[in-house]
């Protein structure tokens, strides 16, 4: 990652033309080819930016960033009047964004107490591998049937699709051909429930605080298992 603080002017030509008069700005040149021009105001959004793949040409006093866009070319030309700082850092391998720990904590709690999902359920393995990725929990039910459990904070249609893909691969093994699926989430989207029902996947709503016994479950007239 290269960071340049410079007094510069920027002109953009492509789908439209734009010009930033000379001022002090931060230029971010990422190793993936992204180029962003930031001011010290205006929030998180750059004043100008170019997404990869780009070609970056540096000449004396200017940086030109080019990108093919169909038959035309987008072009960001930065004229450097005065460079105040120019540093480059090796950032190493990128770690994925961890939005929150809820999914991980849910998996830990449900691995410890799978019977919270369905009575009689017991854990066989966490992160059961399939050739399209690991399913969160592989369990067996009270009748020794195989049950693949995918855990989400919010279960959407994508989560149903993901579990369907895992089940498809798991069921290729004759020993696991009758494996069924459970989608467990703190919040289940109605569309996800409908799609899951149509595919014979059970949906179970879980509450992390209740699983951790930090809070008693709400009293209800009947079980809310779907």
């Amino acid at each position, binding site marked *: 990652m290269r960071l340049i603080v410079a007094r510069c002017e920027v002109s953009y030509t492509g789908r439209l033309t734009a010009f930033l008069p000379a001022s002090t700005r931060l230029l971010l040149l990422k190793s993936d080819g992204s180029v962003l021009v930031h001011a010290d105001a205006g929030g998180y959004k750059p004043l100008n930016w170019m997404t990869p793949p780009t070609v970056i040409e540096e000449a004396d006093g200017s940086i030109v960033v080019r990108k093919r866009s169909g038959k035309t070319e987008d072009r960001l030309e930065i004229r450097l009047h005065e460079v105040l700082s120019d540093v480059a850092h090796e950032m190493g391998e990128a770690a994925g964004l961890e939005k929150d720990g809820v999914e991980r904590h849910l998996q830990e709690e449900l691995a410890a107490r799978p019977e919270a999902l369905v009575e009689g359920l017991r854990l066989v393995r966490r992160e059961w591998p399939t050739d399209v990725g690991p399913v969160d929990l592989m369990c067996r039910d009270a009748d020794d049937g195989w049950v693949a459990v995918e855990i989400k904070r919010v279960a959407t249609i994508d989560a149903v699709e993901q579990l369907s893909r895992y089940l498809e691969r798991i069921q290729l093994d004759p020993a696991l051909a009758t494996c069924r699926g459970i989608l467990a989430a703190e919040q*289940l989207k109605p569309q996800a429930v409908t799609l899951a029902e149509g595919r014979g996947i059970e949906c179970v709503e879980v509450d992390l605080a209740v699983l951790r016994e930090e809070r008693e479950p709400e009293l*209800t007239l009947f079980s809310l298992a779907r």
Partner: protein
Amino acid sequence: MSRGLSTRGTVQILAGVLLQVQDGHLELAATDMELSLRAKLDGNVEGEGSAVVPGRLLTEIVRLLPEEQVVLEHRVEESTVYVTSGSSESRLRTYAVEDFPRLPDPATSALSTLEAEPLLDTISRVSRAASRDESRPVLTGILVRFEGSSLVMAATDSYRMAVKETSVGGSPPDLDAIVPARALDELRRIAAGAGEIQLGTLDNHVIFGVGDTWLTTRRIDGQFPNYRQLLPEAFEHEVKLPRDEFLDVIRRAAVMAQRSTPLRLRFAEGELTVSAQTQDIGEAREQMPIGFSGEPLEIGFNPVWLRDGIESVVEDELTLKLINALRPAVIAETSGDFWYLIMPIRLAG
């Protein structure tokens, strides 16, 4: 008619009102694919044809018309409907009429005629117990079941359940369906003051007719909870309470039950104390004399659910049936054809 319009902007045609001139009548129709409304209007009609116009805009325009009379003129070649009243003229661009969904036709359904009042009264007694949580579609509906000459409706959101049995005259239809509570609430609005309601089924739809207005709603698929099994067979206490006085006490105390805090009801010898306390806000406490004897019992309720139950009672006196602080309580009437089950909330300390 605007209640039938889709509020989800993904399918433009569902935000439109169909204006259809046929056999000398103007018929309006709107649907969001779950609920459909169609109504005939009297007026001087010339020609035949149909157009779909943006429903919300038409509603706004009509609401603000300067005069009582309005002229709607469809100019097909301009794809425009002109709305003229006095010196006001608005032009609405039309949607493609062939995109408007085909609505269930009441003429193809076997219809039964029911007295409106018992049907609407039954809806009003149970509908507020229905869930608003779309992730559990079955609970957003009201179970509507005709058993002989009796109509049973039940609704539940899993925390409370209202059941009403009503005797209906005539020849009731053979219907056992889960009908969206939203559609039945709409029927109450449309049919207010009407003498009769026509009721029929068609494929997966239930059809209600009030004069020249038809409401069609999709049935909800699924299994409704067995409401009879949920009703406890025995109770530890049965307390008779004056409805209005009890309701007033609950309402006053509920003001201080903020941020999902429960109402506390403490039953002791001859006295009920209702209290609510919200940290950093304040508290309320009120007593009322009651016929209670035995070991004191303290039980917590969601103030809104409790108030809904009391408000659903139409008799002057209600019976509150209790088992313990963790089992469902029942609000019942002397007539014995209305029950409102309500789960308590665990009380801290």
